[in-house]
């Protein structure tokens, strides 16, 4: 079976790869491009650990085929920080101890960043519903929600901790 040639943009860089027709975007990221920050928790779009941003929308990369990336712009967890400068969501996850095992964290970081790109002042309820597609089994979500709301406040230039 011949492989497909794909030209795309990942984390701001032009990327070319060969993939098989049945390979998911998550397989490509992890196994072909060594971008192992995106995690596979279920392979069926239920846990959100593989969340990436594709042309501005959050997508479970396990539900997308590698060939579908042609011509798209993709951001993975590896592309959220700017160099050594963490994104406010990442910074607030650390300050609020919003991770325990850290396995779901990449998906949450990507999904939360996308939320704050779209909504600068989300309510707690909006945040909870936005992140309802990301499973965390360790934290009970409490500190995650606080971290995201606090990151939003930081990005708005407000000091208020949640």
């Amino acid at each position, binding site marked *: 079976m011949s492989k497909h040639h794909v030209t795309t943009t990942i984390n701001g860089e032009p990327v070319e790869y060969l993939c*098989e027709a*049945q390979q998911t975007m998550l397989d490509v990221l*992890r196994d072909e491009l060594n*971008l*192992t*920050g*995106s*995690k*596979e*928790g*279920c*392979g*069926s779009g*239920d*846990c959100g*650990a593989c969340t990436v941003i594709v042309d501005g929308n959050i997508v479970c990369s396990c539900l997308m085929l590698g060939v579908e990336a042609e011509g798209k712009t993709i951001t*993975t*967890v*590896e592309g*959220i*920080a700017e160099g050594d400068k*963490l994104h406010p969501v*990442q910074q607030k*996850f*650390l*300050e*609020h*101890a919003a*991770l*325990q*095992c*850290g*396995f*779901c*964290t*990449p998906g949450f*970081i990507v999904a939360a960043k996308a939320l704050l790109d779209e909504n600068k002042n989300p309510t707690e*309820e909006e*945040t*909870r*519903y936005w*992140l*309802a*597609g*990301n*499973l*965390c*089994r*360790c*934290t*009970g*979500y*409490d*500190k*995650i*929600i*606080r971290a995201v709301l606090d990151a939003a406040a930081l990005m708005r230039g407000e000091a208020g901790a949640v």
Partner: protein
Amino acid sequence: MSYLDKSALKVVGTRPVRPDGVEKVIGRANFGADMVMPGMLWGKVLRSPHAHARIRSINTARAAALPGVRAVITADDFPPIASEEAFVGEGPMNFRDLSYNCIARGKVLYDGHAVAAVAATSPAIAEEALDLIAVDYEVLPHVIDVEDAMKADAPVLHDDLFTQGVDPKPTKPSNIAKRIGFNKGDIATGWKEAEVTIERRYTTQPVHQGYIEPHACVVAVGADGQCTIWSSSQGQFMVRAYCAKLLGVDIANIRAMPAEIGGGFGGKTLIYLEPLAMALSRKSGRPVKIVMNREEVFRGTGPAAGSVIEVKLGAKKDGRLVAAELLLKYQAGAFPGSPVGPGCMCAFAMYDIPHVSIVGYDVVSNRPKVAAYRAPGAPNSSFGVESCMDELARQMNIDPLHLREINAAKDGTKAAHGPTWSNIGYLETVQAAQANAHLSHKLGSNQGRGVASGFWFNIGGESSAACHINEDGTATVVEGCPDIGGSRASMAMMAAEVLGIPYERVRPIVADTASVGFSFLTGGSRVTFATGMAVTQAAEKVVVELKKRAAMIWDISPDAVDWKDGKAYPAGPNAGSFEPLSLQEIALKAGRTGGPISAEVTINAQGAGAGWATHICDVEVDSETGRVKILRYTAIQDVGRAIHPSYVEGQIQGGVTQGIGWALNEEYIYDKDGRLENPGFLDYRVPVASDLPMIDAVMLEIPNPRHPFGAKGVGEVPIVPPMAAVANAIFDATGIRMRDLPMSPPKLRAALDAEAPPPRLAAE
């Protein structure tokens, strides 16, 4: 030394960023499935489609002939092992059973039981090869339900399983592996003294630990027999011990490397894939990686036991308990070893009851072998006892918290399972609940409030840790327990406190089995207690050495040197007059004062302080759909000393949320053929962010004097009270008592309909 005086602490009790945090928020941390090796093959596991069947034959020839396939294995590739108790995991384990659980021998015992495995050059080829393995099964009658499995005519899983703990010893095999009992006082006297009695039956379904990271490993066996294992587990020493035994290899020939672990909650205190990858690697001569998918995780690993809980309580008219009786039937899954023992011991631990009788049964059936899950055994029996306490309180018209207050175990109370309590904070959790602002929130219609308490032992055990002082005055702490929820931070904080240097100058690592002394696994809420004790002692040994070096530089006696805030001082005017020497200055001169400064400590930590908790839960019941919404949740817990309070809160909030899932939604559902019907996160629905409110974690610090900083284990007891707290709140809201978990919308809706037919129908 003791650091119990909180006011003197500079680092412990603060909330710094965890040392491994940045790696985890930028996606660089390496979990089990992130490891790759040159020349690596991909392994896949063939699993049984039957709940119970004899394996007549397995033909692997076609799979082995598929281009790209490098090895195929079955049970024949593993040495037969004699029955032998193992003490390397959490809870009871038998090496033979573990071997048979990893790969079926003779019979498959549950849907999802591994029967063969292949290694190939790509995952797709490995998957294709599985389809080419021909297994000839003779399907046998199966049994799923625990009480069905106990019946005399039930299909028997193991011909050599004779019930232990009964006299006379049975002459016929059965599915009842064990009967255990605990007695205190004289139960007949208790019933004579009782003025009010209540007797109820409760049931729970198995639930999965639900860690988001599926099991994963890479194993490389060399031609010389040396083996390296990278895997995600709750204990690299556990992985090493089990693999050595199952493959018949010397422990020294295995080096187990701990990957970051993506959640475990007890479910990664045993192994599934590592022995298979090891056998495949040995056979193929190549490194082999195996990663489970989510369906395999549900069908083949975990879960926690389902159970039947029969409770009888007897009290005086003033509410004082005088008698308590408990009968527990716990599902062990396909092999003996349910946590019925701790279930028995935890059930009444919160209370001072003169006459107690407890009986528990460990029962096998055609389900996956149960694994430890957060306070294993305690949530089941406590759901029964704490629901029954609520029923008693309401029957007697006593406030449920007051009923607990007047019966609370205190220092000096003797528990039914033996120990006499000391330094326990149970009563304090009840009193803190009574004083909590939560109670002042008014409840609306369809809303209710429930309370429940819980207990977990917490353990100590064997731990090793090293503290190395680097040339620039920074410190490296080396320990052997996987960091599952922020324990690296706690280790660095305790070392920094002892050394008197900033937290940021201490770097903790979790080392492989060749780089640190033996350490028991991460489980039983033991790491901050036991490994923390080892880290503290290692840092203290380093301080002794630092003082010796300063004394050498000053040419005075080491006894004349004090250590404070990371500096050596002359102990008093008689010691001489010297400028203080900082740790950094001493480290710089270490080469000239005797060489590197470091210490390793190995201990078997004793004196773990038990965990006690009381929870308050407010719910709203949607009478149309039967859905329960958690409005408010407060979890009060005796934590000893919170080393890093944020991670203590996190343990409490996470445990509560798992408990809420157990209460409201999670369950294993089998079809009539014994096949699991909901092996995925869509149908096995764990709580999501929009299901929950903030969880208020209230930490009571009643220090454990047996730990240098007063720490008690905190991770497990939070999952014990929620099921009853939610059930009691549902009763408060609706007047309906839910005694069968989960209290899912269809079940609650049916109960609501049975209680009061919908007015619409009544009007018709």
